[in-house]
Each structure stands twice: as structure tokens, then as C-alpha cells.
């Protein structure tokens, strides 16, 4: 097997392993764009912060994943962080949390 095909295959396999099979690839693409472009409106396209705090893995290291997911879903009263529950499922919020914690956006 040619190396390029091999690496393409292994990429495919690793993508498959990382993907949550219940969120369709097109929805994942949508969520990724949402994360970078819309979350990025306040937190910065590179998540280094803006009106909202930085969301880099180092800035999130003391925050449990469940807390981050809950913040996405229900917002933070008294701040500009809105509740995204009307637009996202629990599973999708957890998926976004995992993307943020991976630091690989």
C-alpha cells in the first residue's frame, strides 16, 4: 500500500474514533464553524479571550468538563454568556467541550 493511502486511511480511522457517531459529520462541521466563528466572536478566533475569558486548555484546566458543558447550555447569569440550550443538545455541548479541551481547533 502506498504511504499516502496508508496515512489517509489512518487519518480516517482516527477521525472515526474521535467522532461521536450520533452527531452527523455535517452537524460536526456546523458545530466546528459555530465554535470558531460564533464562540470566537466573544472569546477570540483563537480562544485567547475577548469580551469573554480565554478558553484555551490551560485556562480551562481546573474546570471539570461537566461544568464547561453546563456553562455552554445554561450560560452564566450576570455575565454576557448566554444559554445555548435553545440551539444545542446536551450531547452537542459535551462535544464542543471536548473540542475546547483538546485545544486542537
Amino acid at each position, binding site marked *: 500500500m502506498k504511504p499516502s493511502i496508508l496515512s489517509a486511511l489512518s487519518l480516517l480511522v482516527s477521525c472515526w474514533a474521535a467522532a461521536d457517531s450520533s452527531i452527523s459529520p455535517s452537524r460536526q462541521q456546523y458545530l466546528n464553524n459555530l465554535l470558531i*466563528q*460564533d464562540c470566537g466572536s466573544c472569546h*477570540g*478566533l483563537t480562544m485567547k479571550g*475577548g469580551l469573554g475569558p480565554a478558553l484555551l486548555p490551560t485556562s480551562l484546566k481546573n474546570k471539570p468538563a461537566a461544568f464547561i458543558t453546563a456553562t455552554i447550555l445554561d*450560560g452564566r447569569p450576570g455575565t*454576557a454568556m448566554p444559554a445555548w440550550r435553545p*440551539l444545542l443538545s446536551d450531547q452537542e455541548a459535551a462535544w464542543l467541550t471536548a473540542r475546547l479541551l483538546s485545544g486542537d481547533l
Partner: protein
Amino acid sequence: MRYLLLSALLLSTAIHARGTGDLGVLIERADSSVQIVETSNNTSLARVNGLGDLSHASIVYSRDAQFAYVFGRDGGLSKIDILSATLVARTLQSGNSIGGAISQDGRLVAVSNYKPGGVKIFDAETLELVADIPSTYGDKQQTSKVIGLVDSPGQKFVFSLWDAGEIWVLDMSDQNNPAIQKFKAIGLNPYDALITGDGRYYIAGLFGEDGMALLDLWDLDKGVKRILPNYGRGEEKLPVYKMPHLEGWAVAGNLAFVPAVGRHEVLVIDMLNWSEAARIKVHGQPIFVMARPDGRQVWVNFALPNNDTIQIIDTQRLAVVKQIKPGKGVLHMEFEPRGEEVWLSVRDEDRVEVYDTNTFERKAALPAKKPSGIFFTARAHRIGL
């Protein structure tokens, strides 16, 4: 022979020379780049790269409208020659910035920063630092994020402090001795501000409570007046997925149009007495509420999940008269200087569209990478822009 050569040189210069009055710059927010565009034939002329994180980037122009100053999210301040499409100067002036302004005489460029919070003033020619104004408040241990920075006549800059709830008027007439006048307790979390086209009224929108804060720059002794104080009180607000913008003061006659925060409404303010004149129901939470230069129409775009739509309000009837759906992620609008056409950035579909404002017909579509703000050079000659 020498004369011949010289005249040939002059000729070649003359062929390439052009005015900048029909030029503009559009931000490609995810690619650290901008495009130089022209509005006479609606084409893209060039791209300039290497401008850093351009989420929420904005632009002001030099008074000769040859240079664009780009304010990037990452604190980068870049100066671009839009005729040669080259980056002529760049400084990374803070860790995190939000916007800027240029002084009345065009010699100073001001940048408002989130981190560390404050305003920095630069020489417009060289981008050398002229003054550093930290936005300290309370016990002076903290600095506030600064928003709503505008220029105003008399070499002044006016801005608001998000965390502190203050409006500051910075007088730079003596560059070596910046004078600051502070107005405190203006309301919770001012999120953006605007200045009227005559440079007289500065109005900050409040995110943390209802109403807006009004400062008459012709009579600072009167202090800040709260307007629309009862707006929405006691009603539950919708989650705000994108902060509204107050750039583009939409005025028709004595009426001003502003986005309501967290509501599917555009507010109409009677500027004679600063009271609420009407509320217009719209398709979603408004972000930009922009008047066509003649004030006859107001164009409105929306936050998620309604950001594929534009509505047009007739300012005489105070009603939505037209709705168009350019595509996903309509982030910004910019009218051509006399208003016959408007440019829209459609971020998620990677293009910019141009519409005829009378027929609402699409006249052109230009490819652009995740476009956001669009800024035409006519801004060079307008107070507050």
C-alpha cells in the same frame, strides 16, 4: 532622450494613479487578510495578508483616504496603503483589543483594549506610541475592558468602560498632557456606543440593565442622562448570542433607530426629547441597525439563529417592508456613500454580496474568506467613524 524617458515615467504613473473615493476594505476575519474593493464596478482589486486575528476587526481611514488602519482582536494595529495594497506599518500594541478611532485632525489613532484594559494613542504617521491611558477604576487595582471608542470634535476621544460602568472623555489637544473627564455610575456593562453625525451626543447601550446612557458633549457639565429607562423592565430577556452594535447611528428626521438587546425589536427614539417613539417587531435579535445615507431605509441584520436574514425598515412607515435571505452568517452591511447600493458580508458562505437598495436586486457577488466588516473610504470624512 532624457526628457522622453521622464515623460514616459510620468505617463506610467498617471495611468496607475486613481482616486480612493470609491474604494473600501473588507475583513477576512479567519485568514488574517483584507481585500481592497471598489464600488464603481463592484470588484475586488487586491488582498493584503499578515494582519493577525481579525475577529471583530474594524477600520478607520486617514484623512486623505489613502491609508486604512486595521484594529485586530489580537491587539494588532496595522496601517495599509490601499492604493498599493501594502502593509506599511504594524504594531502589536496590546494583548487583546476591540476597536479604534482617528482624531479630528487625522494625526492620532486611538485603540481601545480589553487586556490590559485602556486606550492607547498612536502617531497616525509612524504608529509610535503617543499616550497610554489605562482604564483603572474603583480601588485602581483593576483595569476595565474598554468599548465604544469614538472620535469627537476638539481632538477628543470618548469611550466607555464595560466593567466599571463609566464614560471617559479624553482631550488630546495637548498631546503631552492628555486630559480626562470621567463620568461614573452611568449604568451596568456598557457594551457599545455611538456618536451622532454632528459629534454632539454620545450614547452608550447597556447590557447589564435596561436603558441607555446619553452624554451631551456640548454640555459636559450636565453629566450623563439615562434614556429609555423603563424599556423592557421586568420582562425576561432572551439569551443574547451576539452583542448588538451601535455603530451606524440610524437617523431619519428626528428619529433614531437602535437595536434592542436580547429582543426581536428595533427601538425608535425621538431625538427631540430622547423618549421611545416606537418599537418595531423584527425577525430576530438585531445586531446592526444601519440607515441608508438618505435615511429613508434602515437595514437590519440578526444574531444566531436568524443570521441568514436581512430586513429593511421604511422609516416613514416605521414598518418592515422587505426581507431578504442572502445566506448564512450575514455579519455586516456597508452602504455605498450615496446609498444606491449596499454590501453585505455572508460569512458562512464565503462571499460578499452587493444589492440595489431600490429594487433589492442582487447586483454582484464576490468571493471572500469568512468576510466580516466592510468599510468604505467615505468614512474618512465623517465624525465618529
